[in-house]
């Protein structure tokens, strides 16, 4: 099966349980199970190749420019982990089906589980570190959902948050580390990185990369001092704990350390950090685990301890250490998943997982007793169980390991760890199942159905099978170890066997087991001492850190971003000015290489006009009408400036937009106060003035140097000038750029314009259906002009209308070759129509409007889009235009270009958008006492004459 399918299956399958949760719990579980099974079988099809030492790859280039490729590969290590994830996943699915109650939403649970499974499989099969990071974060997110699955439990929510914070933080650090690694090697492909051991270890960035990546691994795998999240994640339903904390989530960090082993290991830094952290974690967590009374907390800390063990082994940097680590990953996954499931069974059936309330379950739950005992003995490291084998090998490895120059340090600590490990394993069995039967269990305990004990029982078969006949898994373990070692080291000459002879490791083992039994015998007084010592609660420290960070963040936000626009506009301006000034003074500006354009008289006059208008506006901006007039002046000067500086299209656009903007603001001023009161203090105005002058100096200086300097890189404009006629069929290059070269941009822009108009319409509708409507209808009449619809204006606008429309069409048609085009034509036509509204009144104009403006906007976007799609039928790209010359007698030869269709869309969209905005404003202006006249003019002599002739009936109608 394709590797892509194996990774995609869980993600696609995640839809199934979510969609079919109403089909019942069995249906959900079955669907989920078969998704995992299919992926598992697909993986198994690669087994022969992998066992033969081959690497199966599947590659798809996604964003090659960024080095982000969807490359997958499966070698021994990836295969091993994927098989664990999918295999144990299937057992968990069966177990979870029977564990969850009717109240739990099974579809939701299995959806999260499959998402998580997919992310995990993605991590282990990924050949691109950028993809790996994405999957890595996906495991953090999906495990958050899983841990917090019981949303009603506060501990569940807290545990989920804590897990997400810690692993997310680690993931963030890892992103940095991975990017450094990719930069050193020059490729983000894992297989390439793994071949560059020398380059990476010689790089000065090796240590930062190592630290950042290890931060990711340690947080994920709960290594000291980031171990504290794992026990809190135990608030999750037991199937989740069994899955995340035996075979998957926490093994992701281990996996990555193993994966990166060939390039990162073998240095002093790696050895000290990884072995050290592993050793501390192993011993500390084993001690804590012994004194935990919650079954799951005990198992959680034992997991942390065993992860520490594996980490320590990987840290040694020897091939033998790697071999033992791989073997223990396998063994730990089997017995720990079984133990979690049996703890879940006890919790489920006895109603509590508090060890102090349990005991004597041996006869009541015989099956669970056998399962838990087998798994516990394996965890304790008793011969003929698989835990014994890897523990024995681990102890052997420690005797060769010298940390900080002390040859005894590692073996002694490892023995202590193993001793406590044996002690808590014995305690788990003894205090839960042995002893006297009690009569105060919350529920009457009994063995569960096969669905719940089947999966752990199967794992116990593996535990015993591997323990008795380790040679069965030897090929697998060796293949995986080979993959871990890569080209960095050769496989050690060892075999997995039960009896290694009487050696140091055996004696250490004996000490651990005997010591474990003695420790358990003395448990009661020890536990009292432990309780008195008051162990340090990592959660409190974590909460305190989080609270401090939150307070800090809130403090900064409250100061910078307190909701006051004025405030953050000022802060923003100040920051930009400061950063810009810093760049200016610390760098060397480009030389002024271009000769200035010579000056003549008129532009100085224009400049004076602009500056005077602006300064006057600042001085008298409180009179809002006056400000509007001055703004119009500035806009006009700019339009003239555009025309003067060889930009006729811009001049036309600026001119027409100016008209529309002023009309718009006039309409708005109809409702707003006419004057701005004096509110700011003089000091504040001074401050704002200083900021404004700073910003002005910056932009002015910047554009001056820019204009006087040459382009730093060759401009693409030459291409546009050259191909405008050849490729676009138009001589107006600006228009050809708009409708052809960058037509897609323009398409987006007209859509934005349309949306803006619809937003305005929507706000108007909302206002008019709120209490504002009543206030608007009844607002006091202020100084009204004597005649709202003056005769002369009505006549002139109506006479002008056809002329303006013709000008619009003319500008539209010539746009491709001469200044003009859809934007300008649209604005001109809109102005012509607005004039009718202004002269003859809203009601009159509305009655004569044939198409609603929304439709015009929609038609515009539709026509523009259709023109673009039309190009597809000729095998061209979206919006590529074509043109030809035609001659219809008696006319002269003329050009037709498909770009005209697009420009028509632009035209319609602009007309619709401008009209819809202005119309919305005018609709607000209607009052209750406004007479809706169906005549254009209030005073019409001819109408009165007519009325006199036809009699009183018509005269009555007029009023």
């Amino acid at each position, binding site marked *: 099966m394709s590797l892509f399918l194996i990774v995609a299956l869980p993600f696609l399958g995640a839809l199934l349980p979510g969609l079919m949760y109403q089909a019942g719990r069995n249906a959900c579980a079955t669907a989920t199970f078969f998704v995992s099974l299919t992926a598992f079988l697909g993986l198994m099809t690669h087994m022969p190749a992998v066992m033969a030492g081959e690497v199966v790859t599947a590659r798809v280039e996604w964003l090659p420019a960024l080095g982000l490729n969807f490359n997958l590969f499966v070698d021994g290590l990836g295969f091993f982990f994927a098989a664990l994830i999918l295999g144990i996943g299937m057992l968990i699915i069966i177990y979870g089906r029977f564990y969850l109650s009717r109240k739990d939403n099974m579809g939701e649970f299995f959806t999260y589980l499959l998402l998580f499974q997919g992310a995990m499989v993605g991590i282990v099969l990924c050949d691109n570190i950028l993809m790996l990071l994405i999957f890595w974060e996906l495991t953090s997110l999906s495990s958050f959902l899983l841990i917090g699955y019981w949303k009603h439990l506060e501990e569940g929510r807290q545990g989920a948050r804590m897990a997400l914070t810690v692993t997310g933080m680690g993931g963030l650090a890892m992103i940095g580390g991975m990017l450094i690694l990719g930069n050193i090697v020059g490729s983000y492909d894992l297989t390439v990185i793994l071949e560059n051991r020398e380059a990476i270890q010689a790089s000065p960035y090796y240590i930062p990369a190592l630290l950042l990546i290890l931060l990711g691994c340690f947080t994920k795998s709960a290594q000291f001092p980031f171990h504290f999240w794992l026990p809190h994640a135990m608030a999750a339903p037991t199937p989740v704990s069994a899955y995340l904390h035996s075979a998957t989530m926490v093994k992701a960090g281990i996996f990555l350390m193993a994966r990166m082993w060939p390039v990162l290991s073998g240095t002093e830094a790696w050895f000290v950090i990884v072995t050290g952290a592993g050793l501390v974690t192993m011993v500390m967590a084993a001690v804590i685990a012994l004194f935990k009374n919650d079954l799951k907390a005990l198992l959680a800390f034992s997991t942390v301890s065993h992860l520490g063990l594996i980490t320590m082994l990987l840290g040694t940097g020897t091939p033998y250490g790697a071999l033992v680590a791989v073997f223990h990953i396998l063994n730990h996954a089997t017995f720990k998943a079984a133990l979690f499931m049996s703890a879940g069974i006890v919790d489920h059936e006895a109603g509590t997982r508090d060890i102090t309330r349990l005991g004597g379950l041996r006869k009541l739950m015989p099956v669970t007793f056998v399962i838990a005992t087998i798994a516990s003995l394996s965890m304790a490291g008793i011969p003929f169980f698989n835990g014994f084998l890897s523990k024995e090998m681990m102890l052997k490895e420690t005797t060769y390991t010298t940390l900080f120059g002390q040859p005894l340090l590692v073996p002694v600590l490892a023995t202590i760890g193993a001793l406590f490990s044996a002690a808590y394993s014995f305690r788990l069995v003894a205090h839960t199942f042995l002893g006297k039967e009690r009569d105060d269990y919350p529920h009457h305990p009994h063995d569960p159905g096969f669905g719940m004990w089947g999966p752990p029982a199967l794992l116990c078969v593996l535990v015993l099978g591997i323990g008795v006949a380790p040679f069965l898994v030897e090929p697998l373990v060796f293949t995986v170890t080979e993959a871990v070692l890569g080209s960095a080291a050769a496989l050690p000459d060892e075999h997995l066997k039960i009896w290694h002879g009487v050696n140091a490791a055996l004696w250490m083992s004996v000490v651990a087991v005997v010591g474990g039994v003695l420790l358990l015998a003395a448990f009661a007084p020890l536990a009292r001492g432990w309780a008195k010592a008051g162990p340090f609660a990592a959660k409190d420290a974590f909460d305190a850190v989080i609270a401090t960070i939150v307070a800090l963040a809130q403090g900064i936000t409250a100061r910078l971003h307190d909701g006051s626009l004025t405030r953050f506009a000022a802060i923003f301006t100040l920051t930009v000015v400061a950063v810009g000034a810093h760049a200016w003074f610390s760098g060397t500006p480009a030389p002024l290489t271009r000769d200035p354009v010579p000056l003549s008289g008129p532009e100085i006059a224009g400049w004076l006009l602009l500056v005077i208008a602006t300064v006057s506006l600042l001085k008298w901006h409180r009179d809002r009408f006056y400000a509007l007039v001055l703004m119009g002046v500035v806009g006009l000067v700019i339009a003239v400036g555009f025309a003067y500086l060889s930009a006729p299209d811009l001049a036309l656009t600026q001119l027409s937009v100016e008209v529309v903007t002023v009309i718009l603001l006039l309409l708005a001023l109809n409702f707003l106060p006419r004057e701005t009161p004096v509110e700011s203090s003089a000091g504040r105005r001074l401050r704002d003035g200083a900021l404004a002058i700073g910003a002005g100096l910056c932009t002015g200086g910047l554009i001056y140097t820019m204009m006087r300097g040459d382009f730093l890189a060759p401009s693409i404009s030459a291409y546009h000038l050259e191909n405008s006629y050849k490729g676009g069929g138009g001589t107006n290059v600006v228009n050809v*750029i708009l409708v052809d070269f960058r037509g897609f941009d323009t398409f987006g822009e007209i859509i934005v314009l349309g949306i*803006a108009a619809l937003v305005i319409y929507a706000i108007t509708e909302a206002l008019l259906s709120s209490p504002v409507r009543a206030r608007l209808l009844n607002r006091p009449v202020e100084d009204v002009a004597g005649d709202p619809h003056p005769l002369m204006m009505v006549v002139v606008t109506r006479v002008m209308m056809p002329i303006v429309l013709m000008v619009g069409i003319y500008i539209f048609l010539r746009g491709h070759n001469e200044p003009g085009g859809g934007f300008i034509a649209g604005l001109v036509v809109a102005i012509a129509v607005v004039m009718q509204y202004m002269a003859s009144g809203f009601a009159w104009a509305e009655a004569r409007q044939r198409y609603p403006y929304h439709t015009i906007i929609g038609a515009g976007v539709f026509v523009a889009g259709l023109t673009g799609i039309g190009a597809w039928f000729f095998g061209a790209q979206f919006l590529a235009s074509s043109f030809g010359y035609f001659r219809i007698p008696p006319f002269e030869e003329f050009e037709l270009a498909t770009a005209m269709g697009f420009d028509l869309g632009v035209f319609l969209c602009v007309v619709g958008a401008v009209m819809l905005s202005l119309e919305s404003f005018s609709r607000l202006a209607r009052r209750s006492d406004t007479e809706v006249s169906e005549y254009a003019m209030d005073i019409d002599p001819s109408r009165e004459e007519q009325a006199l002739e036809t009699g009183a009936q018509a005269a009555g109608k007029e009023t």
Partner: protein
Amino acid sequence: MEMLLASAVGVLTAAGVYLVLRQRTFPVIVGTAFLSYAVNVFLFASGRLAINQPPVLSDATAYTDPLPQALVLTAIVISFGMTAVVVMVALGAYLSSQDDHIDDRPEGEDDAQAAAPAAAEEARS
């Protein structure tokens, strides 16, 4: 010429920034319009200045840079759309609260003023 245009951009920016920092909606809207002017002219000028060289193909030997012009053309139209939306938002806020301050004022200052129409609305509905 460059000096004139650069100083004009500077003046327009300064005016825009100053007005944006005012406390009522209308000057802020006018301020953003001025900033749009400044930005549009700035972008246009980034293509360097030229007189009598419009980018309309003819027998001429040199043309000014057409690309910034095309970009600025749409920018002008879009800035109209933006202004219209902002004006509408400001208008809506003013009509609903009878207050055209850009920021919420400190507690207590406008309670009496704001409470009256709100109470009236409640009574009506």
